[in-house]
């Protein structure tokens, strides 16, 4: 079994933008993503219009990617969404099983 050092980019934010972000991540080089519904509380979470009747909709999306793709994704999010939307994003180190196949576009 080969373990491959990669990064995980985790983004948590209001629902209106998270599908865009997931697709953007794939465009920028991620081979996929894993998304889940969470309940979020933060400094700007009142902005989340998902929280009208029917419940708080905050989404978390994770991308397993090489370092350069991680940086590109974070950069994009930081510039496009951070100012006006309730969002948080972070990077962590992981060792991925058969990880070479998640580096598809890493040269981009």
């Amino acid at each position, binding site marked *: 079994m080969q373990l491959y050092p990669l990064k995980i980019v985790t983004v948590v934010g209001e629902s209106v933008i998270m599908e865009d972000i997931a697709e953007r991540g794939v465009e920028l080089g991620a081979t996929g993503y894993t998304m889940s519904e969470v309940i979020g509380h933060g400094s700007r979470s*009142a902005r989340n219009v998902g929280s009208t009747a*029917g419940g708080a909709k905050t989404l978390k999306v994770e991308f397993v990617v090489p370092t350069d793709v991680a940086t590109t994704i974070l950069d994009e999010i930081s510039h496009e969404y951070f100012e006006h939307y309730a969002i948080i994003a972070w990077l962590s180190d992981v060792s991925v099983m058969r990880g070479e196949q998640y580096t598809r576009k890493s040269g981009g």
Partner: protein
Amino acid sequence: MMLLPFAVAVSVAFAVPLLGEASADQVSRILVSLQKNLLTPIPLCFLLGIICTRIHGGIKIPKELYYSIAIFLLMSIGFIGGHELAHEYQAHGVATIWKPALATLFLGCVTPITSFVVLRYIGGMSIADSAGIAAHYGSTSAVTYAVANSFVEQAGHPANSFLPTLVTLLECPGIAIALVIGAALSAKERAARAAESGRKVKESKLGEALYEVMTGQSIMLMAGLLVIGFVSTLYMDPKGFQPFYDFFQSKGMLFRGALCIFLLEMGLVAGEKLGDLLKVGPFLVAFGILIPLIHGFLGVYLGHMAGLNLGGCAVLGAIVSSASYIAAPPAVRLTLPEANPTYSITAALAITFPFNIAFGIPIYFEMAKFVGAQ
């Protein structure tokens, strides 16, 4: 537009008695109407929801139940609407319908503009916030329709059969117009800011957002089931049609019962938003009560001109006056991210919606009598 001052005057005249300074007769008529409306399960469930939130009580409606009821209500409004439309169409062609439809479209274009003007130039709010709120008030709330429709039925004056069709017509134009105004007026600002930050101007999401509104759940379900109800009324034999009618028909137990649970959840949410009333300030509170009265009167008046009956005028008033809190918020959030959603949602959900449910609907009903609708 010359109607507006008149509308303002009449609205105020109707609002004033509520403050206790009008002829005994008018006051007492309105009070009876209010009591008839208020002491019924639907507004009482809304109230229970508000109380529960305020005392931190434990009622939790699973959001899947809320969404399921929303789906049922929209399908039901559409299906029964289509069924009734088929009958109307078989009896009169489009003769009775085209005028109210035009009036509704006209109102869908006027109300976002009046809202924007009031918010921006009287309220002094930012372009984004004004346009954002205007998008909400330019559209409509299907639940307000459902409650208004129940009210006029209980009052013995059912609305014209094609009102659901009008709800469908009213959903989109207001949002579109407000967002276009907002995008156009704030384009300059954005360009300046982008230049400053040295990054290229973001492409606006306006087109995308408008498409999403027009193909959103509310429209797809209401318009889709309207067609289905229409077609199957024309082609099915009545016996086969009956079970579908029983399931969806708005007079029936399922519709009213589902409304109770829906309003309970809306009360729970509105109760939370009540805390934001202080944040949004007195101007927006006044706006959230007076604009519906004005738009409501416009709806009632034009509805009467277009030939609607008493119940129909009242219901048209209610839906024109109501503010969207389902289709509008995400569209505004995507297109005008600088707008603060707390303003629009508090106004739509914690001010206008409860006002309409409790007081607005009976008032529009009295307005409809006042303009002579029958």
